[in-house]
């Protein structure tokens, strides 16, 4: 069956008739389109609010988006592989709970527990990867189960929101260097990581496996190895998301992780990643996360009466995605 599941991405692709120069542009469409969407939204936003083009705005929005960005980074890697990871919900909850209950006011201790939390996140991913490969189960089901197990563990450790984080930890979260908040710096590091990672052998292999599993296998990619690596990275980034989240909330929250599952997928998909694997990248996902954040800001400054708020945010999202989908379609059609 594994063999038959291969080719997914290729088989879904619509007949590609005649390549040409415009092809390059269309190939870049998955990233260009969210970029255009973001530009448009920011333009509207800026026309409604003062000071949108300031560092303050950047700092605030980045802090607001960063937990989602980190969660969605792991999800992006998994989606590129052609899988899905629901367990990040559990890992994030557990991560915040461990941080809030274990961190003490001693930096060395905090470093130790930060490492432990990151290792736990990665180990969760290893377990997911092994189960998915060894039992040949759908990622959806395996990670649904591990999500539940991890959430339960978080609730056992801390039944309701609570605990506390050391002052210096919180100070880092709201810190500012050279006018840029810690969130912006972290984001910069993340982008650097991605620029590096996507060109590593592992990065290429993950994308390749999502693009065509059978071909990747025939080319020497180990199914077990790639799944372990993919889900471990996802777990690792979920743990990072949890750690960053605690700098914003100052507490452990045993149920908070579920809030990031669907949005992490949504951010990636808005950013141009296909659920069938193989195409797209983190930059799109980051833009997707910003789009979701900016929509929230927009709805606020539009000063919409309360019940209309969800409608308006849904409609903005729909129009943006619809417009870009149509643009991409017609671009692809005009390719003759």
């Amino acid at each position, binding site marked *: 069956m594994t063999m038959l599941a291969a080719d997914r991405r290729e088989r879904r692709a619509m007949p590609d008739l005649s390549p040409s120069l415009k092809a390059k542009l269309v190939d870049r469409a998955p990233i260009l389109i969210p970029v255009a969407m973001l530009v448009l939204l920011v333009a509207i936003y800026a026309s409604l609010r003062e000071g949108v083009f300031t560092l303050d705005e950047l700092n*605030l929005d980045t802090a*607001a988006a960063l*937990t*989602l960005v980190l969660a969605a980074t792991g999800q992006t890697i998994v989606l590129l592989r052609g899988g899905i990871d629901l367990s990040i919900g559990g890992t994030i909850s557990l991560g915040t709970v461990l941080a809030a209950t274990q961190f003490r006011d001693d930096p060395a201790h905090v470093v130790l527990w930060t490492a432990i939390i990151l290792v736990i996140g990665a180990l969760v991913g290893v377990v997911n990867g092994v189960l998915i490969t060894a039992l040949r189960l759908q990622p959806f089901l395996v990670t649904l189960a591990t999500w539940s197990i991890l959430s339960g563990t978080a*609730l056992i450790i801390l*039944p*309701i*929101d*609570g*605990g506390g984080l050391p002052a210096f930890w*919180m100070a880092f*979260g*709201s810190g500012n260097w050279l006018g840029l908040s810690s969130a912006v710096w972290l984001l910069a590091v993340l982008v650097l990581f991605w620029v590096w990672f996507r060109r590593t052998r592992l990065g290429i292999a993950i994308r390749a496996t999502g693009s065509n599993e059978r071909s990747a296998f025939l080319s020497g990619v180990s199914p077990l190895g790639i799944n372990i690596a993919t889900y471990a990275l996802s777990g690792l980034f979920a743990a990072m998301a949890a750690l960053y*989240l605690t700098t*914003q*909330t*100052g*507490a*452990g*929250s*045993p*149920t*908070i992780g579920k*809030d*990031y599952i669907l949005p992490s997928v949504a951010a990636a998909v808005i950013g141009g990643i296909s659920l069938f694997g193989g195409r797209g990248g983190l930059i799109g996902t980051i833009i997707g996360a910003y789009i979701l*954040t900016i929509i*929230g*800001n927009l709805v*606020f*400054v539009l*000063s919409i*009466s*309360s*019940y209309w*708020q*969800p409608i308006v945010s849904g409609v903005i999202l729909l129009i943006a995605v619809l417009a870009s989908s149509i643009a991409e379609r017609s671009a692809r059609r005009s390719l003759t």
Partner: protein
Amino acid sequence: EGKPYKIYLSNNFVGNDWRQQMERVAEVSVKKGPLAGRVDLKIENVEGTVQAQINSLNNIIRSKPDAILIDAASAEALNPTIKKACDAGIVVISFDQVVSEPCAYALESDWTRIPAVLAEWMASQLNGKGKVFVDRGLAGAPISAQLEKGYLDVLAKYPGIEVIGNYNGEYALGPEQAGVASLLAAHPEVDGILTQGYGSGAIKALQDAGRKIVPVTAFSYNVAATTCAQTEGAACILGSNPAYLSSEAIKLAVDILDGKPKPADRHILVNGDFLATNGGEWTSTLYPDAVIQKIEIGKNAWPDRPPGLTLPITPEWVEITAEEAAGG
């Protein structure tokens, strides 16, 4: 006294009847009565996540309001953001689902007193002896834990009462009914059910399973009151968590902004009356001052009004009608 105060209400969740009544009542209470024209109220709803409420609060803080009222997604996780608001000179009042940040007021029902009275009532119904189910509410929610603890602490004083089952009612009818139904299948005998929700779901589960109706504790929704009043043999007590907590929060904010003396304690408890099928006949020894009304059709139970209406409807300082509370 010139310009109206700019006050934001940040609500983390709109998906139930209580929250909607809460918002409607807030809007009504700045349109008439003593606060008419004094408040420019803006309601911001977010879709249930801590992150969304943090982001929304940040937006609110940037627009420099006089006060922010918060029905919070988390008792802890909003604290750093709330601290920011306080530091910016904004009056912050958390209500209903309150926060622990000391700079913000916390206006809520008395979650110690309510479960204590309810459990005490149950014990008296059972004459100190029997088997009960206890609703645990929603996993991870602080109020759920408080209510459960409140129930258990009182029940522990009655050695004859045994908690034989727990379920998560999640403050929704479906889960309450399904949860009780499962427990009924597992346990041939049960003598009382302490819910955190509607109670009517528990009664319906008893009826569906063909069991006798046992005493039930619940909260004062219209559906709970009417079900108790209309069901043959039902015995109930309903605690109240008034939806007009929002109005009270607005009032408090205006008072503070007006420069009236601030409350001594950041914690402010609002007590609504209890409703019971045997109201008037039974009094609490733990809280002798607790008012316990008798459930009566037409007085505090209205079969022709929406089942999700929360009682009591109006605070004392402004008259809110049932129609206004029910909206529509």
